């Protein structure tokens, strides 16, 4: 296990290297440099002002040197200075990170709490009306455009019924824990929809697959109660692939959070990214992309390790 982990970590080095080149290349390809924000208003700006601005940001150096500067600094945890606010990118990300983690965490937890019991129920009652209804709903959940679902829920629960707040993280002047949680419900639900649909179906088919295995027949044959057969022998084995898919999806949640945060004005990384996009704040965009990529890699690794830890038949060396 230790050796496997070390090998995997070493493999990450070229991967990270490739990712850094792509991210840097994409941002370099941007039409118009950062001085675009100076010129945006259409006013006349003295060329020497632009020159000193470019010099201060370091974008007047050769491309390869800019890349090495950025790479070296990033490796030391310094993602540079934002073009739009002149503050360190790490600080800006750090401020928004808790909100995004909270949203992703709520969505993940909610999806797991709904999807797993529901998957078990469908597998035990397979081909019944309820199971087929579940299949239909999960198709709906996968096809549902996140932003539209968000708008619909706002329309129904906030505008028409007035039960829940439309957007934001708290009511100004009346913020409390309860109020904050009420703000979390709709975005959390929207972000979790796709995963409720996906995980419940996946758990269902995994359960059905395992229930045909020899050891389940053996468990039944030796007279174990149905509860033990399902609860101990079937569920535990069927959970293994589901858990690793759940770990993989954590990285996906990040992309979903970009849209969800925009719809619900949730002050997280996703919104920061969209704002940075319109402000042409390259260091900020690079920082967020890099952070997102590292998260993806990390959870891929976690998924693989979990798989090995949960299933004794899989041994890494």
């Amino acid at each position, binding site marked *: 296990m230790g050796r496997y982990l070390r090998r995997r970590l070493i493999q990450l080095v*070229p*991967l990270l290297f*490739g*990712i850094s080149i*792509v*991210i840097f290349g*994409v*941002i370099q*390809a*941007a*039409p118009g440099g950062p001085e675009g924000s100076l010129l945006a208003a259409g006013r006349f700006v003295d060329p020497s002002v632009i020159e000193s601005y470019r010099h201060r940001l370091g974008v007047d150096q050769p491309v390869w040197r800019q890349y090495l500067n950025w790479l070296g600094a990033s490796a030391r945890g310094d993602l540079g200075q934002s073009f739009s606010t002149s503050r360190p990118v790490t600080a800006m990300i750090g401020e928004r990170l808790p909100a995004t983690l909270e949203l992703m965490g709520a969505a993940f937890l909610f999806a797991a709490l709904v999807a797993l019991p529901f998957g078990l129920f469908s597998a035990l009652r*397979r081909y019944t009306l309820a199971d087929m209804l579940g299949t239909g709903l999960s*198709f*709906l959940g*996968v*096809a*549902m*455009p*996140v*932003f*539209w679902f968000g*708008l*619909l829920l*706002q*329309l129904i629960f906030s*505008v028409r019924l007035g039960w829940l707040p439309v957007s934001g993280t708290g009511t100004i002047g009346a913020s409390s824990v309860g109020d904050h949680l009420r703000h979390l419900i709709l975005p959390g639900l929207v972000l979790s929809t796709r995963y409720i649909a996906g995980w419940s179906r996946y758990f269902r*088919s995994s359960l*059905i*697959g395992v229930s045909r295995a020899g050891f389940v027949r053996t468990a039944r044959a030796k007279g174990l109660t149905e509860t033990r057969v399902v609860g101990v022998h079937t569920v535990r084995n069927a959970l293994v692939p589901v858990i690793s898919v759940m770990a993989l999806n954590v*990285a996906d949640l*990040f*992309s*979903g959070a*970009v*849209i969800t945060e*925009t*719809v619900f004005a949730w002050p997280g990384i996703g919104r920061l*990214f*969209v704002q940075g*996009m319109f402000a042409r704040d390259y260091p900020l*965009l690079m920082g*967020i*992309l890099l952070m*997102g*990529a590292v*998260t*993806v*890699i990390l959870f*891929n690794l976690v998924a693989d390790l979990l798989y090995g830890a949960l299933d004794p038949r899989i041994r890494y060396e």
Partner: protein
Amino acid sequence: MPSLIIFGAIVVACLAAPLVAPHAMDAIDLAAVKQAPSRLHWMGTDDLGRDVLSRLLFGGRISIVIGLLAAVAGTTLGAVVGAVAAFYGRAVDNVLMRITDVAYAIPSLPLLIILSAYSRAAIVSMVLIIGGLSWMATARVVRAEVLTIREMPFVEAARVLGAGSGVTILRHVLPNAMGSLIVGATLGVGNAILIESSLSFLGLGVQPPTATWGNMLMDAQSTMAAKPWLTIFPGGAILLVILAVNFIGDGLRDALDPQKDPA
């Protein structure tokens, strides 16, 4: 089968939009702004008095065309990368698969947002961007299939008969991986439509006044409470099309994959 009919009907209606739409796409009728659905305007009108149903049909042409072309582009690229990697093996395989890993690891939506903001959102560039970022899954699946296919006797036979690598891949290897390619491409259509509408919704897709389902929703967001029909219909159209395409893809998978678990 019903999903095929629904999808076909929507595609035909959208492609024939100039013929079937009750009003012109950008006909502004200031005497009829913000009207709820009625006999004259089945899905109501927007802030400028434009007929929502007509805009939906014209917008659908763009959304569907982008979806179809992007899925074809992504699947083709994925098939080529996967087949070449598996067929040549060794260093080629290694390099291509590491590139695939890199492409997989960068969160795609943020990257799409950046790229579409550069491209000023023409249809062709949307197709290339979405297709160019959705080939990785296909590449991995095709690679896995080709690894087994290339060991088959008929591939050996083709090589013995003097077929070059290109001919062998195109004529003998890829046709045998066609099942998963078709399924992947079908599911890719829904995904591409979803991405296109998300980008339009953020204001980064095809720009108004040209209608797409996503930018109609963006326009509707601020006035959602007073005029819900502006939000409900475009989103419903997106949902319906993606649902239909996914059902088709699922049916194809059942039909084409003999090893599929009957559950």
